[in-house]
């Protein structure tokens, strides 16, 4: 009991003595851990968007004219054989045209100038398993070719198929965007974490320097290394964990005031929830503890010898 009280008293005294530097270390830890949490949340947000997109997606196989019943039946059967395909629905010209008119209800310039005869018929495929696009295009022998003009367009070997609207490319782009965004934020977070380590280590070192006389006496009277070091280690831990607490609070505030205000304006966009923020809390705390431990090891290396 006396020992624990001693450690905390020494730690509190150290923080007080070292106020400004401790504050600098704390704010750096805060910014670093905030960015670290932010990169995790960005990755999570994009994961939600991707899941929603792939979850609701329909692959559209557009058919070339003239369409005959036999082709529709044959293609439907073959598509249904693919694992992950749940339903295949044939949209004839009338249905496709209604859909088109609904979609562009507010833009009469499209609907008035587009006769139903040019709107293609299609097979609408629902996927139970995401990420099966490539199998559909493979089955229908579709591939992207580059024509003489240098334009890329899709060509399908299967007779009766004009082209397949493929979301793979969109998903790939989304995935790349996620990666770039969260990696760059994560990269900044790593740099900030490194500077947090340096600053916490520096406060510990300054604290030890300010108390070198005391430490010298402690050594002389036979205090163990741990007895000398633990108050400084706790000090680093406190600085880093206070930074973590501030970072967690800031992420929650950001979620409430920024993300939640978007909720009404973009109903189609899935947004991160409180549980997503809670889920990253352990990671932030873990990062904070790592910062403190590494800073302690670096900061006290030169003071370890008896």
């Amino acid at each position, binding site marked *: 009991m*006396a*020992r624990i009280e*001693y450690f905390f008293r020494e730690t509190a005294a150290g923080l007080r003595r070292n106020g400004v530097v401790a504050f600098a270390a704390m704010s750096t830890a805060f910014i670093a851990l905030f960015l670290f949490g932010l990169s995790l949340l960005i990755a999570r947000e994009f994961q939600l968007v991707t899941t929603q997109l792939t979850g609701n997606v329909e692959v559209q196989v557009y058919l070339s004219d003239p369409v005959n019943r036999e082709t529709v039946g044959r293609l439907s059967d073959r598509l249904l054989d693919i694992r992950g395909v749940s339903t295949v629905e044939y949209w004839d010209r009338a249905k496709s045209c209604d859909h088109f008119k609904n979609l562009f209800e507010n833009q009469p310039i499209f609907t008035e100038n587009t006769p139903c005869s040019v709107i293609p018929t299609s097979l609408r495929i629902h996927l139970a398993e995401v990420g099966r696009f490539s199998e559909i295009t493979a089955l229908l022998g579709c591939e992207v070719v580059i024509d003489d003009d240098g334009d890329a367009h899709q060509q399908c070997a299967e007779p009766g198929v004009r082209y397949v609207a493929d979301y793979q490319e969109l998903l790939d782009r989304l995935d790349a965007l996620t990666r770039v965004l969260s990696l760059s934020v994560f990269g900044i977070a790593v740099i900030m974490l490194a500077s947090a380590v340096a600053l916490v280590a520096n406060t510990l070192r300054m604290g030890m320097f300010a108390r070198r*006389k*005391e430490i*010298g*006496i*402690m*050594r*002389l*009277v*036979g*205090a*163990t*290394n741990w*007895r*000398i070091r633990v108050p400084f280690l706790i000090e680093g831990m406190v600085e880093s964990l206070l930074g973590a607490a501030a970072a967690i609070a800031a992420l929650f505030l950001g979620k409430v005031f920024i993300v939640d205000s978007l909720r009404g304006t973009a109903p189609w966009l899935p947004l991160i929830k409180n549980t997503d923020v809670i889920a990253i809390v352990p990671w932030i705390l873990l990062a904070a503890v790592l910062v403190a431990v590494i800073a302690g090891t670096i900061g006290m290396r030169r003071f370890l*010898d*008896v």
Partner: protein
Amino acid sequence: MISLQRVTKIYRNDVTALEDVSIEIDKGEFVFVVGPSGSGKSTMVRLLLKQEEATKGDVFVAGKNLSKITSFKVPHLRRNVGTVFQDYKLLQDKTAFENVSFALEVIGKPKHVIDQRVPEILEYVGLGDKLNAYPDELSGGEQQRVSIARACVNRPLVLLADEPTGNLDPNTSVDIMRLLDKVNRIGTTILMATHDQAIVDAMRKRVIELDNGHVVRDQSRGVYA
């Protein structure tokens, strides 16, 4: 209690501080180590505390070979060896009581032991009425008494004193020597490095004289020169 066996200490800058020094000091002895500045007195004290390691030879303190004990055990060695220095090494922001209790606190002694022993030892060194005085409110001699109290509060087997009277006037020095003599008489082995001739001559204790890293004289009931 203290034994140096053919000890040589060469510092990294090739300065030879001690060369082939052998000394035996028994339990309860009071020994002066004398010699001019740079003769190796302070190096000897540092070796006995394992603040430095001997380049050659063996150093024994309280039955332990210092070159064999791990750095992990060094703190436990130092709990058996009290130290007093010329500059007192007191913490200015702590009272006499706190300076002494600090030494027990940092080796993990419980509060009831501290509350009992600290006033006791301060009384013993003659500062029973100055428990709450800060170092800058005490005279040099009183500050040295606090430092002796701190060195003795954990009841060490050995007390090492490096020029303890170096900053004190002759009368105060005599008082400090009386106190050290008193500590010696309860069984504490004392090794005191000094070049205070008057004190060595007055005490008539064993004198080991160092010159340029060599023992040039080892005399019981000796004088300074």
